[in-house]
């Protein structure tokens, strides 16, 4: 059936791809957005030459957060599956990298296990490890929907914290363990001085480019998924679960698959975070971190890559900005002096931002730019009266048998 049906339209289909592609390029050249993107990427590439270590670290931090948020946005934003366990998979990535790449040593009274693999291989394996951890949880992730999954994934946080604090030989216990610097094709992303155009390049400057590349690739991958066949199936599961099944989407398998994919994104974010921090500490990977990631995608915009990136930048840069300018900001005092610490202040602020976004900007910050460029024309057919049955909110068939 499918073969015959598919083969049929193939003949009249296939308008020569050449001219359409060329048209696409010229049209793209006319849009101001193309130039904005171009200028933005040039700026990002030039930043390490001008910014000091503090801001580069903040930027790297935001990139790692963005990668993690993209993963969570595919799961929570696009598929409607709440996850509180994102911090757990970040930890799997970060610690996985440390264990796989690190050498066995003794530190703070812990005998640390390390496999001493090449660091690039360790990074790849750490991402796969996070995916495997997601895969172990996927029988649960496939069966539970929405908020129920959120509650189940809470368990991961508590298990994760317990293991991180107590499996001393792997994690280094309370004080964590040092992160071996990444080395790629003989180039090591560490603090050995390298002067580029009279600017000394330390680990932050070097990692900046690795982070940008990782973010770009993960964003492009996610965009491809979200705009393609899996993305449509994921959105269908979020919007109308029963209808999705009836359309031929294997709901449980998709939920499980997206969960694994999002854990891999979290794993990659964890690896990058570890490389930036140069030390992993268990306390960081707690529930607050999971909540921060949820705040990112809500503030930025659920279900889109741009939303995740914008939200991640907002949530992770805000505390840094506050810390840096704490002496010149009213009400905010330097950390440790009593009063409102910068971290707390920024938490209040993005708490308020979450509420404001939910109330006034349901599409998130990403919608602000989009609303102007993509306003659907509203051609109303004059002859058709508006239907009274509130067509804008199709009732989800939660109880498909309600009528009978």
């Amino acid at each position: 059936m499918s073969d015959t049906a598919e083969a049929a339209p193939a003949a009249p289909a296939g308008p020569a791809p050449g001219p359409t592609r060329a048209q696409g390029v010229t049209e793209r050249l006319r849009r101001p957005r193309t130039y904005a993107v171009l200028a933005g990427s040039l700026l990002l590439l030039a930043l390490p030459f001008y910014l000091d270590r503090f801001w580069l670290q903040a930027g790297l931090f935001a990139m790692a957060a963005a990668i993690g948020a993209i993963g969570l946005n595919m799961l929570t934003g696009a598929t409607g599956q709440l996850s509180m366990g994102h911090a757990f998979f970040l930890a799997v990535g970060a610690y996985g990298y440390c264990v796989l790449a690190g050498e066995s040593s003794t530190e703070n009274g812990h005998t640390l296990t390390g496999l001493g693999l090449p660091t690039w291989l360790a990074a790849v394996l750490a991402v796969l490890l996070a995916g495997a951890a997601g895969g172990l949880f996927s029988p649960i992730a496939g069966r539970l929907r929405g908020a129920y999954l959120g509650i189940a994934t809470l368990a991961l946080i508590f298990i994760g914290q317990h293991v991180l604090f107590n499996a001393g030989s792997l994690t280094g216990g309370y004080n964590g363990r040092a992160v071996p610097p990444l080395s790629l094709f003989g180039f090591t992303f560490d603090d050995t001085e390298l002067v580029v155009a009279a600017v000394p390049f330390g680990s932050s400057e070097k990692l900046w480019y690795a982070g940008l590349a990782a973010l770009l690739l993960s964003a492009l991958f996610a965009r491809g998924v979200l705009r393609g066949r899996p993305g449509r199936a994921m959105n269908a599961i979020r919007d109308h679960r029963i209808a999705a099944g009836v359309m031929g989407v294997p709901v449980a398998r998709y939920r499980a698959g997206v969960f694994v994919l999002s854990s891999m994104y979290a794993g990659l974010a964890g690896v990058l975070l570890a490389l930036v921090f140069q030390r992993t500490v268990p306390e960081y990977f707690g529930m607050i971190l999971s909540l921060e990631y949820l705040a990112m995608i809500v503030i930025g915009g659920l279900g889109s890559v741009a939303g995740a990136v914008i939200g991640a930048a907002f949530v992770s840069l805000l505390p840094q900005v506050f810390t840096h300018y704490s002496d010149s900001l009213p009400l905010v005092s330097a950390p440790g002096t009593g009063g409102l610490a910068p971290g707390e202040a920024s938490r209040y602020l993005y708490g308020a931002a979450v509420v404001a976004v939910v109330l006034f900007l349901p599409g998130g910050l990403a919608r602000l730019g989009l609303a102007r460029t993509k306003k659907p024309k509203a051609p109303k057919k004059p002859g058709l009266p508006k239907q009274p049955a509130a067509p804008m909110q199709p009732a989800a068939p939660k109880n498909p048998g309600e009528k009978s």
Partner: protein
Amino acid sequence: MTTTATASAHSTTAALAVQDVTVRFSGLTALDGVSFTVEPGSVHAVIGPNGAGKSTCFNVLSGVYRATSGHVRLGDTELTGLPPHVIADLGVARTFQNLALPPHATVADSLLLGRHRLTRSGFVATGLRLPSAAREERRHRDRVREIAAFIGLDKELERPAGSLPYGQQKLVELGRALCMEPKVLLLDEPIAGMTADERRRTAAVVADVRDSLGISIVLVEHDMGVVMRLADAVTVLDFGRRIAGGTPAEVQNDPAVVQAYLGAPQ
């Protein structure tokens, strides 16, 4: 369209047989030993007063509910107990009484969801933008355009489904089901809530689907005018039981049907 018509005519030789299906929800019997057969390429209407079990029947046919006992067969294939996506894969498509369309997705994207079972690209292929995924997408977008033209929505493809009038949204749902290239199409009140003009158009589309695509159609509808005009056979349900069946003319004159709709004479 002609190519598909011949393509489906070959494959649509399977009858949909419902045998003795009973559905109980903890004490409430929603369907009680219902049997009927949908002949290939015909329009079979299921009618009955509110609460007669029509939607339950649809939910059993599409796998959303599991029958407590009884069988549903498509040709030689047993559908009873299969999950919805497997039943969809076998060529059973349905629409919902209340719209089940994402309001923000474009009409084209909604229709493309219907192609899910006919397409293969997964996470890796679409994420890496492999040429195979791009080719598949292009081919199916072309087919979606054809189907949209068939139901008269080709002008609205790039608009969000939620911005269309209600009647057209129902048409989009019908189109999405057609995009699955089904053998059997289950339509749950396809013209409810439509204006007279939209009703006429939709009824014409439904008749066209049967005549030119050869798809069997099971129709639940309250508009008796449309049912009597479109249906080749009618099954009447009341309180979960089949009380009558036959051609529209036979059913119209059946005293049990008149009684179910108007009440018993005193």
